[in-house]
């Protein structure tokens, strides 16, 4: 089915926004603005910046830990991570890592943070709660983006200059292998149930599909011009690839790799995530200096009447977020209030 989307908002956030993370409970996105040396805090309901937090020099990536309420930025020119309290929006600490940290990922089950250090050619592993460095693993030049496969107990560290992927055992922190991928490898996502990883090769203009059991590249997929960012959709059926060269996002099928849609966004898109709360795509447009919020429409544009199939297709998918007035108080009530609860939405009318 062709994809139809609408732009919800393009929020000016700062200079050269790159990494983006979502805080479901607070209804916010956090955006690392690399040339502003700031973390932009965006309220996703109002689509407005509510704060800019000064972090270290050139923050490239950002992650958010729900349990501690901490936001982490990889400050590339500071060779450190900034740790920001999400409640007070103040910097709690700066944690030294390797040279030019550029990629972050969290393992919230094992309580670890992984950081690719591009000029250090290493991957740092930190305890998410104590911020202690647990290991520094050798990778290769340009080590940056990291993804995890908890099933296979693997971390994959993508090395931009070396055009390779380093495999690391996440129990022993030992290197267990490497493979070559395309030139400019810079983003990665894992689909553990398929035993596959997808790596964006920005200079080659391709996306490599890797079989994680044989550790081989089994297919090269095409996206748009100069692909640089990637995220796996929450249902693990899609790969979203940002194309810096033409201001678009390619939507690729995980199953057969075909491009099932292409979404026009702002200039120079890079970091991309799917908001797990409402399924909206959040794209950091480095060229435009914006965070773009994109909503996928069911079966057509807002002008079209949805069909009965649309309702049936909802089963198994996240309920689209709502914000509706309470009939008693007039106060806006959001679906977030019922997060982690089971409930029935009963639609009825007066006629």
């Amino acid at each position, binding site marked *: 089915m062709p994809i139809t989307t609408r732009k919800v908002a393009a929020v000016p956030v700062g200079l050269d926004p790159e990494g983006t993370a979502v805080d479901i409970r607070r209804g916010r996105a956090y955006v690392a603005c690399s040339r502003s040396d700031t973390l932009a805090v965006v309220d996703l309901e109002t689509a407005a910046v509510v704060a800019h937090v000064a972090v270290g020099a050139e923050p490239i990536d950002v992650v958010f830990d729900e349990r501690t309420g901490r936001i982490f930025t990889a400050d590339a020119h500071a060779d450190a991570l900034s740790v920001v309290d999400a409640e007070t929006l103040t910097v709690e600490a700066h944690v030294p890592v390797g040279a030019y940290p550029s990629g972050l990922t969290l393992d919230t089950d094992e309580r670890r943070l992984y950081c690719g250090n591009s000029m250090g050619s290493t991957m740092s592993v930190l305890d998410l709660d104590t911020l202690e460095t647990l290991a520094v693993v050798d990778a290769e030049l340009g080590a940056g983006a990291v993804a995890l496969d908890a099933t296979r107990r693997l971390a994959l560290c993508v090395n931009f200059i070396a055009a390779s992927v380093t495999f690391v055992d996440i129990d022993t922190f030992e290197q267990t292998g490497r493979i070559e991928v395309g030139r400019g490898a810079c983003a990665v996502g894992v689909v553990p149930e398929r035993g596959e990883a997808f790596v964006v090769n920005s200079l080659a203009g391709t996306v490599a599909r890797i079989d994680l059991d044989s550790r081989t590249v089994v297919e090269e997929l095409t996206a748009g011009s100069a692909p640089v960012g990637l995220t796996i959709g929450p249902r693990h059926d899609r790969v979203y690839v940002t194309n810096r060269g033409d201001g678009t996002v390619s939507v690729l099928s995980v199953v057969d790799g075909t491009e099932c849609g292409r979404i026009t966004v702002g200039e120079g898109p890079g970091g991309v995530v799917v908001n797990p*709360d409402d399924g909206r795509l959040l794209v950091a447009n480095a060229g435009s200096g914006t965070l773009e919020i994109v909503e996928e429409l*069911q*079966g057509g544009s807002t002008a079209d*009447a*949805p*069909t*009965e*199939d*649309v*309702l*049936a*297709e*909802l*089963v*198994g*998918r*996240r*309920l*689209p977020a*709502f914000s*509706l*007035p*309470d*009939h*008693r108080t007039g106060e806006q*009530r959001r*679906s977030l209030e*019922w*997060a*982690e*609860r*089971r*409930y*029935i*939405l*009963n*639609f*009825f*009318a*007066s*006629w």
Partner: protein
Amino acid sequence: MLISVWEGTEARPEVERFRELWGIDATILLDESGDYARQLGIRGVPTNVLVDADGVVRDVGLVRLDELHAAVDRLTSGA
């Protein structure tokens, strides 16, 4: 938990009358423009949408009481 979404204009007094008549204690939200109902693909009322603790829709429709009871049993048992 039940959330009733009321579709139609000038809803508030009608909703209040309905609520009193049926003794409804549950949260009632207003979708006066019908935009949210349309977004979900709802074409007629009443329609029920059951949501699990992960925010995933588990069942839709369920106009008959026996269907609704069975679906709620499934939802609460985690099946």
